[in-house]
């Protein structure tokens, strides 16, 4: 069966030169190795700037490592061209972002419809309506992001992520911009949807409690990935 596997032994990124005495090269991830199985929920925790988002972008094939290999759905992403990696994502990947990444000029319904229409999926409207209903926004279909609260916006983003029924969902600090209560609701919703759809979940967060809801939790420190160790924290 398909396994979602990651082996990221080492990652180097060219960083922008920020001052005259900077070397210009910054090693962000060092020998990270991670394997995620189908249906699993995995969290990665780390401080700001620790490289969590970089690791997520590598795992999703949004960027490539300078060293090492990344396998997604049985395919080695390093050996694929950008469009081939896009094809892999198109088959089975969903995203949720910290800043929601909703299109400001589109209504909630149109935002959810977008990925369905992009791939010309059948019954797009019905499916989008159902997804929004699932996240409790049946009454806010025609509101634009600016007219929704932060929590509502993230719910739209969740509906958009799940409406394509992805095999794997990448969530980058999905509650990072929300207050504690709203964040709690969104976390609950995320895990409910995940359980319901049996989607593999890769979650990046700085919230330890949120991270522990996942079946496996890792922490990223000094560019290295380790099993989350409360004592060490």
């Amino acid at each position, binding site marked *: 069966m398909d396994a979602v596997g990651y082996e990221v032994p080492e990652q180097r990124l060219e960083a922008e030169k920020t001052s005259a005495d900077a070397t210009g090269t910054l090693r962000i991830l060092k020998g990270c190795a991670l394997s995620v199985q189908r249906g699993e929920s995995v969290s990665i925790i780390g401080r700001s700037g620790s490289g969590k*988002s970089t690791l*997520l*972008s590598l795992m*999703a094939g*949004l*960027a490539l490592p300078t060293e090492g290999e990344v396998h997604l759905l049985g395919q080695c992403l390093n050996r694929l061209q*950008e*469009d081939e990696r*896009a*094809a*892999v*994502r*198109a*088959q089975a*990947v*969903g*995203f949720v*972002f910290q800043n929601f*990444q909703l*299109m*400001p*000029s*589109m209504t909630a319904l*149109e935002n959810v419809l*977008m*990925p369905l*229409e*992009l*791939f*010309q999926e059948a019954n797009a409207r019905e499916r989008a309506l159902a997804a929004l209903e699932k996240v409790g926004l049946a009454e806010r279909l025609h509101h634009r992001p*600016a*007219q929704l609260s932060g929590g509502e916006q993230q719910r739209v983003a969740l509906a958009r992520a799940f409406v*394509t029924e992805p095999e794997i969902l990448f969530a*980058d600090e999905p509650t990072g911009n929300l207050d504690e209560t709203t964040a709690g609701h969104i976390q609950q919703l995320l895990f409910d949807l995940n359980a319901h759809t049996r989607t593999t979940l890769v979650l990046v967060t700085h919230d330890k409690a949120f991270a522990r809801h996942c079946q496996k939790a890792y922490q990223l420190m000094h560019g290295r990935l380790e099993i989350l160790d409360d004592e060490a924290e």
Partner: protein
Amino acid sequence: MTKLNDGRTAVRWLWRGLKKGDWLWLMLAVVIASATVTFVERLGDTAKESMVRKAAMNLGADTVLESSRPIADRWREQAQSLGLSVAESQTLVTMAQVAHDDEAGEFQMVRLKGVTPEVPLRATGGLPRIPSGSSQVWAEQALMPLMGLQTDPASRIVLGEKTFELAEAYTSDQAGLGMSAFAYEMRIALDRLKDTGLKGPGSRMTYSLSVAGEAEAVQTFTRAVREAESPNLEVRSAQSPSEDLGQALDTAWQFLDLAGLSAVLVAGLSILIASRFYLGRWQNMIALMRALGATRARITRLFAVQLMALALGAALLGVLLGQALFVAITPLLAQYFDPLVLGDWLGVSAYGLLMGVLVLWSFAWQAFRRAVATPPVALLKSISDAVPVGHWLGSLGLILLVMALISAGSWWVLGSVAVMAGLLYLASEALIWGLNRWQGRASGWLKLSIAALTRSPGLVKIQLMSIGLVLFVLMLMTFVRADLMTNWQLSLPADTPDTFVVNVQPDQKNAVQTLLQKQGIDTELVPMARGRLVAVDDQPIRAEDQETQRGKRLLQREANIAVLETPPDYNRMLAQRSDRERAKSDLPQVSVEKGIAELYGLQLGQTLTFDFSGQRQTYVIDSLREVSWQSFRLNFFFVIEPQPEAALPISYLSNFAIDQSATTPQELMQSMGREAPGVLVIDAGRIMDQIQTIMRQASWAVSGLYGFTLAASLIVLLTATMASQQSRIQSWLLLRTIGASQRTVLKIGLMEFALLGALAGLLAATFAQITGMLISQFVLEMTPQLSPLLWAISVVLGSVILVVMGWLTQRHYLRLSPSAMAQKWG
């Protein structure tokens, strides 16, 4: 199938966006571009065609070939093979006499024209069509009182050996060229001309072949005749009916072209600004789509289809708007253009559509290219949305290329715009540097206003360059238009001479002078001799060696050469020999007109030999002069120094403005006929009326186009203020949140606009002044005028326009509470 589905998806997304007004600015810009181009082209075409038709009516055809020898049959055959209508005529100057039963009537010099039944090919109703073999004669209305003619009972007129019965009088707008053209005209059937016995070896016949028809065929025919370079054939076309009119029309055409190009540029700039506004939005969406797995090719397709559909839809709307505007002003046009020939609507519509699409793509191309290249990782890591200046210049380069493709021959405009953009960029760099320094010293709300401007220097540079270019185009048009108007008006002052007296023999000089004084006309009779240039520096100069048609023609004819101690004071002296050079030669002197000097490569100190009726005289070139041919004053190619010992065939001529309340050219003609037979009185008023009519039409078209470009430019300025709206409102929000009063925010906001407008105005005025002067000098060949007020006006105008626009577009946000502002823009 996927591609088809992509097309559907793209159109669906576009339609959704349109309904919500997402594409409003881009759409508006394309609509402006297409509407402006359509309107300007349609108006320009109509003005041009109406003016050409008017000129054609004056000419009686689209093109006329004239020759002193019979015109070769091959030209008639070629014209007919091109589907053109052909008419022929032969003209000679002769004396006409009214035949009375009891006594012989007065003689009158007339231009007798024998015409085929097709004449005139182009004219209003006034001119007669004369059937072959007719034994009647038609006389120009002015001859009726002059000769005491009547139609009931019909006067009989003796022309050579035949007597013709007067059919009727006619009025004519038509005017020929040359001295004979000023005599009034009589027309008979061409096949009866030989019966008069007036055609003979000594008669100075002019043979004409007139053609009219489809513009393209006429052009083909005219080109073929000109290329044949037959030295005896003179071509007159409605496009440039005479040298006087030609210059005025050329200037008008150039202005119309300039207006059209300005419109495209102005609209293009609004697209450039609008596309920058959209770039950030596209980048977010494209990054998300790529993260979701859409390939770059697919995204390119989806966006290209949207942009293309938008371009086509908006361009179509613009074309309709442009056409509707044109239709709306048609009644007004009819008052100015008679006849009104409406330009081709279909071609102009297609052109407007094409221009809308091209302008959108060329100006939005860089933003589009940049957006589709957005990496998916942009969702996780912010990427710069700053648009490098290279992007701006790249877009400008593209639009210049498009403009170059559509306006071959206007490279100087494109070049000046390109140079201007480069200079504006450097100047805007300098201004930003200055602003930064000013900000350091300023305080309070002024400091904040400057800070708001310098916050994103890239954007301010683009705004400065765009607003600067728009203002520059406006200033340039204002400048050129003012120059056109001033020069045209100056060239025809109220006391412009409208009557000429020529062929006054030395023994008639006193009688003519006395007669003119009696009529209250104070003028001097200028002595002249008719001569032909035959040698330069003692080397024969031959017509066949000349490259240009004009060069050949002028050598084959005798020229009117003034015999004066000094050239007329209304000629501008360009160069003169020094006293030392004068001392070297004892030859008499000649002053040469600049155009002739250039035509034959003549220089000071060279000698010219003229043939005066077989008598050769040599002169040394003492000076070069510039002459205003449009002034209707007495102008000569050559002015020679009088030599008592040389018996030149001198006659006298003069011109003056006749006081119509004291006498008329006709009355003067009659009394001159009695007192000094053989002296010709020429009424030039008709030619001047034509020129004035055409200039009035041209100046109207020029003003109309100017107004439209002005309106379009204001909309571009509006889009320029909108480009930085979001960041501006966010900073206002911050100020309001930390407790700034509405009044303070208002002051900061409006000051920002005022600064931007003033700086752009300063740049624009400086460059407009320089370019305007260069254009006046080198392109329009007019005297440039410096306008110091231009700077002040431009700076004030720039500030006022931007403040008003800023107020109109931003006042809503200035009044919002911080929370409402945050909800809308935060």
